[in-house]
């Protein structure tokens, strides 16, 4: 059965390694923080200026001067630090953040990503996404395999204006885990009960299938 959003986040959480600094985008990526395994020690960066971001505050303890990049009230863990936006993107651009997880509208088989603009619709802006995708060594895209119209979001080439070029390394969807390699999307894992044929049908870009494809373990 296809994964729900929380299960996508849960699968992505398995990728995290101790010692990593991680930037989580808005939406599914934010949920990843809820599924960190015991013993895995990571620290969350929010690009508006905090390292060591903690959970939401208890009711009545919100501080207007302490928010994340989604403008939500948050808390700071012991060992946290605040900094300005130039320093924040020095961390990102300088590749001090080991993992960026973000959503996408389209991903191409060469690792291009589109997630900020739909021509003809209101454009809100790229925020920090272009800096994040252009800089991170390790980018995981969290998204549904197809859009609401049932069309594949894993394409030969993106049709929407790009956020970044050749930068996506891994994609976790409701159907599969895929890696962007030379030649296309290499299928690594299937969602429990989802067949290779179903994934093939939902993938417009070149799908590389080598040997038996295991089911994800959640």
């Amino acid at each position, binding site marked *: 059965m296809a994964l729900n959003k929380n299960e996508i986040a849960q699968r992505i959480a398995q990728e995290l390694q101790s010692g990593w600094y991680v930037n989580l985008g808005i939406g599914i990526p934010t949920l990843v923080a809820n599924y960190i395994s015991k013993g895995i020690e990571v620290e969350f960066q929010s690009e*508006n*200026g905090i390292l060591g971001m903690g959970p939401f505050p208890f009711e009545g303890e919100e501080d207007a001067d302490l928010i994340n990049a989604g*403008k939500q*009230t948050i808390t700071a863990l012991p060992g946290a630090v605040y900094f300005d936006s130039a320093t924040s993107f020095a961390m990102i651009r300088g590749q001090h953040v080991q993992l960026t997880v973000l959503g996408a509208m389209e991903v191409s088989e060469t690792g291009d990503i589109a997630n900020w603009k739909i021509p003809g619709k209101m454009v809100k*802006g790229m925020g*920090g996404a272009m800096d994040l995708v252009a800089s991170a060594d390790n980018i995981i895209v969290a998204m549904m395999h197809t859009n609401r119209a049932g069309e594949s979001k894993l394409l030969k080439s993106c049709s929407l204006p790009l956020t970044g070029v050749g930068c996506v390394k891994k994609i976790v969807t409701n159907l599969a885990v895929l890696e962007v390699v030379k030649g296309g999307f290499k299928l690594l894992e299937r969602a429990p009960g989802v067949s290779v044929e179903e994934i093939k049908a939902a993938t417009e870009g070149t799908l590389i299938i080598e040997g038996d494809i295991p089911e994800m373990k959640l």
Partner: protein
Amino acid sequence: MNKIVANVEEACEGIQDGMTLMIGGFGLCGIPENSISELVKLNVTGLTCISNNAGVDDFGLGLLLQKKQIKKMISSYVGENDEFERQMLSGELEVDLIPQGSLAERCRAGGAGIPAFFTPAGYGTEVAEGKEVREFDGKPHILESALTADFAIVKAWKGDTAGNLVFKGTARNFNPMMAMAGKITIAEVEELLEPGELNPNEIHTPGIFVQRIFQGKGYEKRIEQRTVRQK
């Protein structure tokens, strides 16, 4: 060196129609509320505003948008604002969208006398259109230029009469770089102190970057997304 001015009216003296202003803050966090209200009162128009966001309909820069005082916004993200959307779609408002990290670095560069720098952000996207591309270590980068402003308006937690500033939490955001990049920088603070009351090791923005400072009042500090958990 005394940078103190009596009030927000005096602080905003000289701000005129058609000027370029930098306004600190991220969302509604760390915005110069007193000065924004004064800009509304002054009714200066044709402004180019450099600010990461554009406020919400009835707060922050949204107040200037309501009165059509802004000609052009230079921002990284401008959601959460219906009036903004209306003006943008109707062509009344020019909008220049810039990757957030490039925006921060371009402000810093403007203040630091660095006219241009290379960054990978935006390469291969419409942000790169018309910009020089160069490879470093096999990776393409684009050349981005410095930003400066006639006035930079920032909000700090504490400040002293010498213009030294300390920010609180994530309300720091764009304020320090914008303070560097203003021809005249106005700082409004929640707490105005005498020289020597701030520890010189703990100052975020040295007073040299600030020309006018005043004690702000009546901060609303509106929260955009109140998220809490239960005890």
